[in-house]
């Protein structure tokens, strides 16, 4: 059975196709302002890359903030359910997930069958999300993809105390003006996200093995800071960003 999952996030749109328990392929594009068009585009591009026809896919599940704008999907599930399903299929031992996406962060607890036991989401605030990192990258004039690499060189991370993205940005600007090193400021930003996510996760109590998913998992600096803060080993898979789409595709097999 061949199925697909489409995950429309606030920053990127992801698609995955699975066949008989195996991942055939995944794709990530920017969502842009039209979530509906992004869903169609990412799916069609993936089909083309894999030389597949639409008719070759039996069921489609959509997820993410734009889940209801994917009108060709058979069903939609929340990203909490999909990240859980995706993580479980990638590693059956996983019991907790931290998912940091563009506009929110979540901690999810799984039972031994990969079902969601409990979850917690950030309050309506960009701190502790990918958007926070984007704002900071702009202020620091650094490409976001280099953030992780730069920050691991820091020995003395700067202190970012504000919980608000806007205030934290002005804090960062004053740190720049004070002549603090870029690597230290970036490391400080990562620690600030890590504290935020860690205190939120404490509400449900994380259990190892812990996996990180979502686009921010690509940032090794955040993963390192989070591991230190939680005092836990964090599993990072190359599929981290597309875990939700993969989970959606696996959930489609149950329809």
């Amino acid at each position, binding site marked *: 059975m061949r199925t697909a999952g489409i995950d429309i996030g606030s920053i990127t749109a992801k698609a995955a196709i699975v066949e008989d328990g195996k991942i055939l392929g995944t794709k990530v594009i920017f969502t842009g302002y039209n979530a509906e068009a992004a869903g169609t585009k990412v799916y069609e591009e993936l089909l083309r890359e894999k030389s597949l026809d639409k008719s070759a896919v039996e069921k489609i599940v959509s997820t993410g903030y734009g889940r209801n704008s994917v009108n060709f999907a058979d069903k939609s599930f*929340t990203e909490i359910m999909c990240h859980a399903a995706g993580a479980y299929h990638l590693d059956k031992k996983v019991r907790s997930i931290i998912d940091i996406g563009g506009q*929110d962060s979540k901690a999810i607890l799984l039972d031994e069958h990969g079902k*969601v036991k409990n979850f917690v*989401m950030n*309050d*309506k605030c960009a701190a502790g999300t990918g958007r926070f990192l984007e704002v900071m990258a702009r202020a620091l004039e650094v490409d976001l993809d280099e953030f992780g690499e730069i920050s691991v060189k820091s020995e003395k991370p700067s202190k970012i105390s504000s919980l608000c993205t806007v205030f934290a940005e002005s804090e960062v600007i004053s740190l720049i003006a004070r002549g603090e090193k870029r690597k230290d400021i970036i490391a400080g930003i990562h620690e600030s996200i890590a504290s935020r996510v860690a205190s939120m996760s404490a509400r449900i109590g994380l259990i190892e093995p812990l996996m990180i998913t979502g686009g921010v998992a690509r940032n090794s600096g955040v993963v390192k800071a989070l591991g230190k803060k939680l005092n836990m080993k964090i599993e990072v898979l190359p599929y981290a960003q597309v875990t939700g789409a993969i989970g959606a595709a696996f959930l489609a097999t149950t329809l």
Partner: protein
Amino acid sequence: MKKTISEFLKTVLIFLAGRFKRLTMYFKKTKTMKDYMMVYYSQAKSAKLTGGKVAWITSGGPVEPLIAMDVIPVYPENHGAMIGASKMGGSLCEVAEAMGYSADLCSYARSDIGCATVNGGPIGGLPKPDMLVCCNNICGTVLKWYEIQARYFNVPLFILDTPFCHTEYTEEMARYVRAQFDDYFVFLEKACGRKFDFEKLNRVGYLSHQGQLLWQAVLDTAMHKPSPMSAFDAFYHLALIVTLRGTKEVIDYYTWLLAYMKDRIARGIGAVPNEKYRLLWDNIPIWHRTRWLSEKFAAHNACLVADTYTTAWCGALRYIDENNFIDSAAEAHARIYLNIGVDQMAKMVIEMIDKYDVDGFVLHSNRSCKPYSFGQLDIQKIVERERGIPCLMLEADMTDERTFSESQISTRIDAYMEIIKERKNKK
């Protein structure tokens, strides 16, 4: 001068509209909540015309002595709920914020303080008070809020101080609160210029108790499956037990409502057409989103069958002795849900979980209401431990719609319902 005349004419019109409504109600078989509320507010707003007095009072305050002295009680918190439901909270809060009040302050307080200066909101502001009665059994904010309004309107303020009952109600507490009731009577004698009518207080106290019993009976109908009413219905029908407690109108209305709900039970009509999941709600409603939330849960075949909020107006019934109203009222006012320790609150929540046989517990972490929201995480943990049902925390505000994030809340509810469905289907 012109303004005074137009103000006067407006008051006359409000008075006449109220009288006309009352007349038409006389011939109406089923009197609606709207009928009662319109008469109530027109009476309050035209009290000056008839020589009546108006008191503003906190929602948990003892209203019966006011009614016994023919003072019309008006509730800024009920008004706050109306402002919230009309989606006018944000703009009125902005008025208060421009005056210098912090955005972290309770949105009922902010919208009331803002509204008093502009006479805005859905009913053009509350009638000016002749006195203020503040009981701090619901929160500490009301103390400063009422002091501000007492200064603004230059009217006397009575404060009833109810000590926090962490675990018990001691002899000292009882004496302390009871003694203040005597002060309250003296305050009213002075404000009204006549002797306090204890005989009438007993009658009002009796009606108040009967009203609360009826309200509890209405809420109890939700024990039935499917529930004939949802918490969203309770949020609506609550207005009378809050504003007119101690009057015959409350008895008439809830007698009718109880019969109506029983009839729905008899005919198998549920508030949610295909009720599959039953939930308990905690905290003040998100007034500006009640319809949206109601439809959201109903789309998942979930009914919020009960809530800790509307139960508060009959939650202290066990302490009331209808033959000894004054002494027992002191205890009942001190031991309301918001004035007890977290362990006791959790115990009451668990009693409700069992009573209404719910599958989940939804907690509104209300940015405005600190005493209601502060212990919620502990209560949630106790509930998860004791009953093992999934709990959901929603961050919002009762009146200030600017704090609401629809897509976030929507995802949380959807994900929560996915968990509830999985659990229930497994059983």
